[in-house]
């Protein structure tokens, strides 16, 4: 699934992956996809909570070699 915008939050501690995500999603239009890469293990629960609270949909979530990848669709 190709994202419209990508954010590299690898190496950043909590809460910066979510902060970068919230900043990036502002620039998208409804339906566009945002991909975020993070290495913070807390980000798994954080992205689920963020999607649930903000209404943006978490459409894809994978992990590869300690790098978490989240794809979200802007509501």
């Amino acid at each position: 699934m190709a994202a419209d915008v990508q954010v590299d939050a690898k190496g950043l501690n909590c809460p910066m992956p979510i902060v970068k995500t919230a900043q990036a999603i502002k620039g998208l239009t409804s339906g566009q996809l945002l991909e975020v890469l993070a290495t913070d293990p807390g980000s798994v629960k954080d992205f689920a909570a963020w999607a649930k609270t903000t209404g943006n949909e978490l459409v894809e979530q994978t992990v590869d070699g300690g790098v978490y990848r989240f794809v979200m669709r802007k509501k």
Partner: protein
Amino acid sequence: MDESINLVVFSGTDDKLQAVAVLAAGAAALGKPVNLFLQYWALDAFTKAKIGRDHGLAPEAGAEGRAAVDALAKAGHAPWAETLRQAKDIGGVDIQACSLSMDLLHLEESDLDPLVDGVEGVTAFYLNAGEGQIVFI
């Protein structure tokens, strides 16, 4: 999610201010309005003259805590002022100085870092907090 998060920020050590910045940034990312009310030593840390300085750690940190915080900073963890700037960039974060603490520390509004949006009394803080939670740090 319109329920506000309201942080009364009293302590001026870097560890507690970092905790404040993380709580504020997380709430802002969730779209919650965030109000910070700066009192006493926290307000002192937000002056132009001191914001970039080392503000020490809470007494319970000890030498081990100091080393842990230094290691986190060395690994690239953003200082609290930078985290707060990022939170304000998301929007919905308002930072106010307590007017009594301004008097206590003999400060003028022009002495404060631009992160601070203004000066208010406790009544205005409660009014803006509304039904939202209030946390004292």
